[in-house]
């Protein structure tokens, strides 16, 4: 089943002049990590809101085009069902903490309580998620006193506990320091290993290159490029859409321009190190 099938989608927020999505079409498979990049106001967050049904049920405006989520038309989805089928984490750590629970343990349990999960199962589920994300040291703390990075992890835990098949993650590290960002990406890695479908909007292109299976580049509300990570991030026209390629790609392109092509487009530091090492060996043997 496809995760999402969008065709010629246009959306204009109510009382707004310009459309936020303008002829957007894409097709995404389940079970993959789909990275989304683009300049600010290119439609990334609007796309995320659309996938979860927040548009048009919460944000009013004019929506046209075909939107199919997990095989069903958007209009056929019950809004409450859709918003729990597709979990979401976004960039503000402060608005994702409910403010009505005194411990992190209770905070994580909220979603499961609302789903009507029996208490014993609920407790086991919370314990499992806490262990998985390595936040045992936070369980008795008051969520309202945590740092941004800690809150973001609790937000992840709260959504992961609900075990949705799909997660839409919108710039989760934009308000975090580098160390917390790394930890968040490890969480995402874990989700990927568990076979979840993930839509990940990020600016940190280097991290995206390491984890995403496909990259979709948005520009002015439409898809400029979409495809496997290696193809998109290695494409020469990428910068023209306002997206900086990963460091290692820039390195490979420069080497290629110097006549020292690496033969393979590296996506991660590890791949680059290997490719350069191989080339150096060949060069060494050639002499």
């Amino acid at each position, binding site marked *: 089943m496809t995760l999402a099938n969008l*065709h*010629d989608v*246009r959306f*204009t*927020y*109510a*009382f*707004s002049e310009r*459309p936020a999505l303008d002829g957007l079409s894409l097709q995404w498979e389940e079970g993959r990590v789909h990275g989304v990049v683009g300049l600010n106001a290119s439609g990334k967050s609007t796309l995320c809101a659309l996938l979860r049904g927040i548009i*048009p*049920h*919460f*944000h*009013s*405006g*004019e*929506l*046209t*085009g*075909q939107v*199919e989520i997990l095989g069903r*038309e*958007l*209009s056929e989805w019950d809004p409450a069902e859709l918003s729990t089928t597709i979990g979401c984490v976004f960039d503000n750590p402060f608005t994702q903490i409910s403010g009505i629970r005194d411990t992190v343990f209770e905070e994580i349990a909220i979603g499961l309580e609302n789903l009507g999960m029996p208490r014993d199962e609920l407790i086991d589920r919370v314990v499992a998620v806490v262990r998985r994300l390595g936040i045992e040291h936070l369980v008795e703390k008051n969520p309202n006193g945590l740092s941004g990075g800690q809150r973001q992890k609790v937000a992840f835990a709260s959504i992961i506990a609900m075990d949705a098949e799909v997660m839409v993650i919108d710039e989760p590290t934009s308000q975090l320091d580098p160390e917390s960002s790394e930890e968040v990406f490890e969480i995402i890695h874990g989700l990927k290993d568990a076979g979840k479908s993930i839509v990940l909007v990020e600016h940190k292109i280097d991290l995206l290159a390491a984890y995403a299976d496909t990259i979709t580049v948005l520009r002015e509300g439409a898809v400029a490029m979409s495809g496997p990570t290696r193809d998109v991030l290695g494409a020469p026209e990428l910068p023209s859409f306002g997206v900086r390629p990963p460091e290692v790609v820039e390195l490979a392109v420069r080497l290629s321009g110097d006549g020292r092509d690496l033969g393979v487009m590296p996506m991660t530091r590890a791949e680059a190190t290997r490719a350069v090492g191989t080339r150096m060996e060949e060069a060494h043997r050639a002499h």
Partner: protein
Amino acid sequence: MASPSRFSTFLHGYGRLTIFLLPIGVAINFVGGQIALLLKLPIYLDSIGTILVGALCGGIPGAIVGLLSNAINSITSPPTFAFAVLNIAFGLLAGFFGRRGFFRVWWKALLTAIPFAFIGGFFGALITIWVFGGLAVGGGAIIVGMLTALGMDVNTANFVAQIPMDVLDKVPTVLIVYAIIKGVPKRLMTKLPLGHVYLTPAGRTPATAKAV
């Protein structure tokens, strides 16, 4: 092949956002009051949230904010609860005026200060007389006490003390409410029950449909 469907909607906020605005309204009441105390202003400024939520979401949400703020205050100062009716009235009245667009223009907003002050002052004095025999608590009571000592009848003293106080308090309150409403972003406004009042200028300007 699924045909391109056209689900264009002008959904007004489902009112789902109202639930989330109520706690903010309560917080605004408290913070307003705290700041007034901090800056030693001789006014309460503790109904900004009530009137704001009433003007944006309707009378009942406004009344709830008023009642809730009063109830929370009553935990540490139980006599306050006798005046709960006033806060409820402020909320309902704010909804009434909000619906009729009084907070769209600054001088109309200013006009609403009169009924607010009257209710607060007049009925506040009445409640003080009925429930507390004319002598309640706080600075107001001291003033009433002094006036009575000077020979004024206790009931009159209450009105003389309360009504001017309330006028002094409600005028800045409604102006602040007006200022805040002006600053509410359109996208948030569309989700509020009375948002349509503030989003339509002289004539309607709906987002135009795009030719596909």
